[in-house]
């Protein structure tokens, strides 16, 4: 019995905590955008818009995993890219699932859709999006990347009067910051994380928009 407890204790200490996988939008912004654009032409490497049409899926997975291996093998497409851009793409430490998600994201023109969503004004939100914003604000729906809901620290006038009192009442936040300012604030997060546990951001673009939509809706309701 005692050795079992001891072994359990040692195992508990040694077993590493599994790290959370990141979404394709975050992977794209963190791993790809320093060398690639999506629909804005060549940067250091080729434009990634339509990349899933130009190359096969298996080839793309092999290329992203290790471009050097493909070039050494003398792969025709890999060699052509290497000769055109005069450098090879660094090997990426992404899991197979992350690469698959990234390719699906490219195939669905994800970066352009996200950019459109970022520029979208909160007053164009549907009732469902406002409802989603409310659920996110109150914490009824958890944020994709984890973290606390707005409700933990903030109230929102009469609509969410039971909210926390660590931060200010957010009833006038939309009027003060408008879409652009709020989007920037929500990207950064209210409290900077002391140590990032994942590569993920604070909110997804969809969550950010839903929250802005809810704040805008409540501001209008008060007026």
């Amino acid at each position, binding site marked *: 019995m005692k050795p079992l407890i001891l072994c359990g204790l040692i195992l508990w200490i040694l077993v590493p905590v599994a790290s959370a996988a990141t979404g394709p939008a975050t992977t794209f912004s963190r791993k790809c955008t320093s060398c690639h654009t999506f629909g804005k032409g060549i940067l250091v490497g080729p434009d990634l818009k339509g990349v899933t049409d130009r190359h096969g899926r298996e080839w793309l997975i092999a290329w992203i995993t290790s471009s050097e291996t493909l070039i050494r093998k003398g792969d025709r497409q890999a060699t052509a890219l290497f000769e055109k851009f005069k450098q090879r793409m660094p090997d990426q430490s992404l899991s197979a699932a992350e690469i698959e998600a990234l390719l699906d994201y490219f195939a669905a023109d994800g970066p352009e859709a996200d950019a459109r969503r970022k520029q979208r004004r909160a007053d164009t939100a549907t009732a469902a999006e406002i409802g989603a914003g409310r659920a996110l604000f109150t914490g009824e729906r958890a944020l994709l990347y*984890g*973290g*606390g*809901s707005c409700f*933990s*620290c903030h109230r929102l006038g009469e609509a969410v009067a039971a909210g926390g009192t660590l931060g200010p009442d957010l009833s006038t936040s939309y009027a003060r910051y408008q879409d652009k300012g709020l989007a920037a604030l929500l990207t950064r997060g209210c409290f900077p994380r*002391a*140590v990032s546990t994942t590569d993920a951001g604070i909110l997804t673009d969809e969550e950010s928009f839903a929250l802005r939509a809810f704040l805008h809706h409540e501001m209008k309701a008060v007026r």
Partner: protein
Amino acid sequence: MSDQLLFAVVPYMAAALFVLGCTARYMRWRRPDRSAGGLSRRDGRSLVVAATYSAFAVIAGLHLLAFAVPEDVLLWNQDMRRLLLLEGAGMGAGSVALAGFLAMQVRQLRAPDGWSADSPADVVAGTLVVVITMAGIAVALTYRWASSWSAVTVVPYVHSLLQLHPSTTVVARLPFLVRLHLFGAFALVAIAPLTRTGGSVLLSVDRLLQWTLAPLSSVVGRAWDVIEARSAARVRAAYASLLRNDHEEN
């Protein structure tokens, strides 16, 4: 600068003092005796003392839970009833602990040897416990839903301390009461090994270590005996060989 000192340097100083204090006290006793500290027989019978220590145990458990599984605490708090239950439990335990602790102190001061029974470390630690508990209750009342917001503010800070990359960006933006609660906790950690309760905890840890490491120590002990026997045999053989060489040269 003061934030860096208070929340990036002081925690490690407190940890170092804690380790030094525990080691020094343990080495001095060798085997901590039962009279080292803790509840006296008279105290043990009191309902107030039992309730106070239980309340402190509940508070410690809730804090440990918040630090160990912050994401799960946030998930738990998604439901308003569960949030109220958790906050209520913390608030209730805090109030019982504070009232009970103050009652214990008053009773002790009224005793014939009340003023001289405690060491200076016990007095300082007692004061810190009162300050920390009062600050905790004040935080719960003033800044509600601390179990939720602390998961994204205090917990990442404590994790940064444990990972030896202290980050004070979050703590610097927290209200004074929260910072007082945190700083008081560090000070208490530093002084804890020198207190009566610290002595009794050390005694329990010693017993637990004996209980869990006994099988390991018997294995290590046997292995050590074998190594020692082999080593001694080799030394004897080498010494005999040297003696023979000396005889031959003479």
